[in-house]
């Protein structure tokens, strides 16, 4: 250990680092009794949320090309591709029970379809149907941004017959679609239909 060459650098003089004990000085802290507290009264007061806070996702259904880049980069494997009737490509379904809000999925999205808003409140009243809300196909930005209180935009998810799902927003607006299946490959039945459609299109061209 003696052979190690020491590199010389600036060291603070000892008297600068050392302190002297004092009996009277601690009492100076009493002046804070007459100052305004830094704490705020929630829910009557609010903190300001940063403009680009990483919160809930938004998805532009028109520009999403179903490339599954988001699913590949997700560190928590929270993204599942979902096939929806009427949409040519699969859309990501995000499970907030697993999501770490790293927003790498937003970074990698090649078309910019997946985005995020600063809304972040994940608390529920511990009801089964409320927990279900946090496993959703994100809606377009204007529908999520309508609500200014940073809470999740959905009020209820209704499961109708033959795979139909109805998302009811907190202001009563409803979005209805049918989920055909999950996974990277399109489900078997609609695949045949799609082929027919695409074949017909080619013929007409």
């Amino acid at each position, binding site marked *: 250990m003696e052979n190690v060459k020491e590199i010389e*650098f600036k060291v603070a003089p000892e008297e*600068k680092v050392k302190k002297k004990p*004092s*009996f009277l000085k601690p009492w100076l802290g009493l002046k*804070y009794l007459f100052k305004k507290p*830094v704490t705020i009264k929630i829910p009557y007061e609010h903190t300001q949320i940063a403009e680009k806070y990483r919160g809930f996702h938004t998805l532009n259904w028109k520009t999403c090309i179903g490339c599954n880049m988001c699913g590949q980069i*997700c*560190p928590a494997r929270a993204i599942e591709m979902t096939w929806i009737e009427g949409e040519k490509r699969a859309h990501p379904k995000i499970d907030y029970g697993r999501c770490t809000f790293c927003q790498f999925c937003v*970074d*990698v999205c090649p078309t910019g379809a997946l985005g995020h808003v600063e809304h972040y409140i994940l608390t529920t009243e511990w009801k089964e149907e409320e927990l279900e809300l946090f496993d959703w196909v994100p809606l377009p930005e204007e529908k999520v941004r309508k609500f200014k209180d940073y809470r999740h935009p959905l009020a209820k998810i209704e499961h109708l017959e033959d795979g139909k799902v109805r998302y009811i927003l907190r202001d009563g607006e409803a979005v209805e679609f049918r989920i055909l299946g999950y996974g990277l490959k399109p489900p078997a039945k609609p695949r045949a239909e799609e082929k027919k459609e695409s074949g017909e299109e080619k013929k007409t061209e």
Partner: protein
Amino acid sequence: MVSQQELVKEARENGMELLPLEKDTYELFFGPQHMATENYSLILKMDGNRVVKAIANPGFLHRGFEKLAEYRPWYTNIALFLRVCVPEPDVPEAIYSMAVDELMGWEVPERAQWIRTTVLEMARVTSYLFWTMGMAFKLGVYTAGQWAAAYRERFMALFEELTGARVYHIYTIPGGVRRDIPGDKWLRQLRDTVEYLKDKLKDFDNVLFENYITFKRLEGIGVMDKKFALEEGVTGPNLRATGVKADVRKLDPYLLYPELDFEVPVLKEGDALARVLVRRFEIEQDLYILEQLLEMGPPSGPYKVDHPALKALPRFKVPAGDAYAHVESSKGDFGAYVVSDGGNKPYRVQLRGPSIAHGIRVIEQLLVGARLADVPVILVSLDNCPPDIDR
């Protein structure tokens, strides 16, 4: 009735160890529910009020980070490694990114280097304030602890504005940083915060660091020998408190540190008081460094490398080879050794955390002969980070 020998044999077969009972001592489980230990536990053998033997009992936060990293793409691992040290998540991000930069042969843009240095210094201040809170609470000076928590909040707000999250920033990535500085307003806010905290340090001195209770409590307890500290591989403020001149920022300069002017505090005593005073001086120096960085101003230019591989992150590949990068965190020398076999996932990532050096063997030695009331104080004066020990 089973005999004692049979019990010992049975335990050994199942991979356990039975400790013999002694008449004069009793066993005390200290933590993990004790406030001072934070997800860490000690088994103390006590003789009255004195500790006869201390056994570290870590492992409550084991998540196998290094193994998990081998199954995830290069960029995804950033969201994993910052969980290794929660009070300063930017350090694991930075070392991993610096190692990958070296493997890729990337020259990080000047603006990104400035942002990385600023973020690392801000992380150090935040971490020291968090530690001040813990130390003040253990000493019973709750006033100063609550101030530290409140002032840390100001830095958290700045981090929120810059990175988009309060605690888990996920900000430093290989090739630069994820977002640019939000604008001049943010720089002004940072300058205001630094000046504000510099002003408030006097109050901290008055109430906590120059308080005679602090001196009465800390002087001469948990004394660490210089030779012992070097043998165990202790780094950071704990080593500096034993009289060794060591700081990664000076010995192996990285980022913008060669251009910055700052002093390194070194004390000879090696007791809990020396460790506390060294850390107090570090806060002052970190604020001074931040002031210098703000005076320098962020250089113009891109904030991350422009490379075609960054367009498709899941398929991002790193050429085969290995690299090591380390920085000076608030707890000590934090390093990452990254090995790549040319694939889209790392072959192996090894982290060298500072806490494992002073969190297990050293604490077991320092606690021998200490009073029970001093156990939390010695533990917090070492400033160990339980998730870093367990990993």
